[in-house]
């Protein structure tokens, strides 16, 4: 126990010493750079770069195991983000959207352009206050009305949009030719090409789209047990889905790796100066 405390203390001293050393070296590097903006700014910028690098490494340390440095970075992130989003919510929604439409004196006070008195904006104001009634144990039930309004309005707005774009348009998107640019068997083989825009690839693509949509929909059919031909189609559907998920997974791995590359670029370039 005393040993582990000693080790923790040594690690802490090393971390602090490395932080200070890094800060000083970075400040000198920034001051000596062609874009030098003065000693104070170099010290300030060096501090921010160093602390960003150390927080990055603190989060990365979780890959080894959970530790106080990771916890510190996590709690710092949670606290700052909670405060940030509260400020954004206040200034963007209340001051940005509500105040300019209900009060000219408040608009002047908060220095936002007054858009004129629109009585319709009092409706969300009242609904917002009703929603806050949730905090009262006696009157909390009234907040359900505001919630019902939110759910109803969102559903109504979204129903038409999603039905139009994600259902009707997609139905017509499956009206695709079985054989693309078909001029006969001879021309098909004489102009055969594996190019992605070639006849063969486009034809295969259309077949995959149609069978995939058909069988995928059957998999999500809940009113019938998946047996017999229906079961076979459902299994084809789940295979298509799994292949899609695999491709999607691969795409996301690419996304995650690029975020890692971005972070390492920051460490190597902005902090350590190893790459330009």
């Amino acid at each position: 126990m005393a040993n582990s405390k000693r080790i923790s203390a040594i690690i802490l001293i090393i971390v602090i010493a490395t932080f200070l050393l890094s800060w000083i070296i970075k400040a000198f590097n920034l001051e000596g750079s062609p874009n030098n903006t003065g000693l104070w700014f170099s010290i300030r910028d060096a501090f921010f770069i160093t602390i960003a690098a150390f927080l990055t490494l603190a989060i990365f340390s979780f890959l080894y195991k959970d530790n106080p440095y990771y916890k510190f970075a996590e709690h710092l992130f949670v606290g700052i983000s909670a405060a940030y989003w509260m400020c954004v919510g206040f200034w963007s929604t209340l001051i940005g959207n509500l105040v300019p439409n209900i009060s000219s004196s408040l608009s002047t006070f908060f220095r936002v352009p007054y858009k004129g008195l629109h009585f319709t904006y009092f409706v969300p104001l009242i609904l917002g206050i009703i929603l806050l009634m949730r905090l009262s144990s006696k009157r909390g039930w009234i907040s359900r009305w505001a919630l019902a309004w939110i759910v109803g309005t969102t559903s109504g707005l979204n129903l038409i949009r999603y039905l139009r774009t994600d259902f009707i348009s997609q139905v017509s998107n499956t009206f695709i030719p079985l054989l693309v640019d078909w001029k006969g068997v001879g021309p098909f083989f004489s102009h055969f090409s594996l190019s992605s825009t070639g006849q063969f690839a486009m034809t295969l693509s259309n077949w995959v789209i149609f069978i995939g949509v058909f069988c995928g929909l059957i998999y999500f059919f809940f009113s019938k047990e998946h047996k017999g031909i229906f079961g076979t189609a459902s299994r084809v559907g789940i295979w298509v889905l799994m292949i899609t998920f695999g491709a999607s997974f691969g795409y996301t791995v690419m996304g995650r790796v690029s975020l890692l590359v971005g972070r390492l670029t920051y460490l190597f370039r902005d902090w350590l100066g190893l790459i330009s």
Partner: protein
Amino acid sequence: MTNIGLIISFLVIGVGLLWLFILALKGREVDRRIIFIFIGLAVSVPLLFRISFSEKATPIVRDVFYKIENLPEGSNILLSYDYGPSMAPEVEPMSNAFLRHALAKNHKVFIMCLWATGQSLIATAIDSIIKREFPEKINGVDYINIGFKAGGQGVLNVIITDFRKMYLTDVDGVNLDSVPIFKGIKSLKDMDLLISIGGGFPGVKEWILFAGAPGNIPTAGGSAAVAAPLLYPYYPKQMVGLLGGIKGAAEYESELKKVYPQFANMPTPGIAMMGPQTLAHLVVMAFIVIGNIAFFVNRRRKP
């Protein structure tokens, strides 16, 4: 430098993978921290030795490029920065490429965001791209930043009929009616192309659902890789084209360099990232193959 880096990468990682393969065949468990080290090496070495690969634009990326390219000079293009710093390494290369392309074609660029965190990224883009590379472009004449408005798709519902119901001024407080670029612009329907860059909510899908499709306005997207597969069903009828992840950004940058010689020396973070990406993907593929072989071998070994 690049060749030495490639040789070192393949040697170190290749030997390491062989060792892992032997361990796996013996049925020994591999600590996940070893896997993390491999991924770290696969990404760090190409970065340090500047290994990169050339890119060729695929049709879905080319369609966006040539849409911007073929619009008459002076067309109105709206760029929406719907992402935050967490997605920036992936999508910032594409947003910078769009900005360069649109300004090089002398299009009028309208910049906004549906994410609060997009505001600082727009400011960075204006300082690092427009003011540095296009100093002749005038704010309010050639481009404008109207900033962020809270409301997500609600904002799109409003500005598809009237911009001024949501935006009275730009981010500097200048009235839109006094700004030359906004003369004759009433709503999103006056835009010749909408481009949303992001990968979360609201993002490209919301722009298609609430602006592009109902307003019949050509819409293109630049999306983080995780959201890109969801958007393919909209191509090509409801979406002009899509840049999917850093690969899409790299393809767009390579097309831009090919068509515009003035961008020969521009920073291409998308293309630069392809080296680490390729190596990391090869390592992941090797892990999958090793893991599956080990799984089947060990299953056969057990009675």
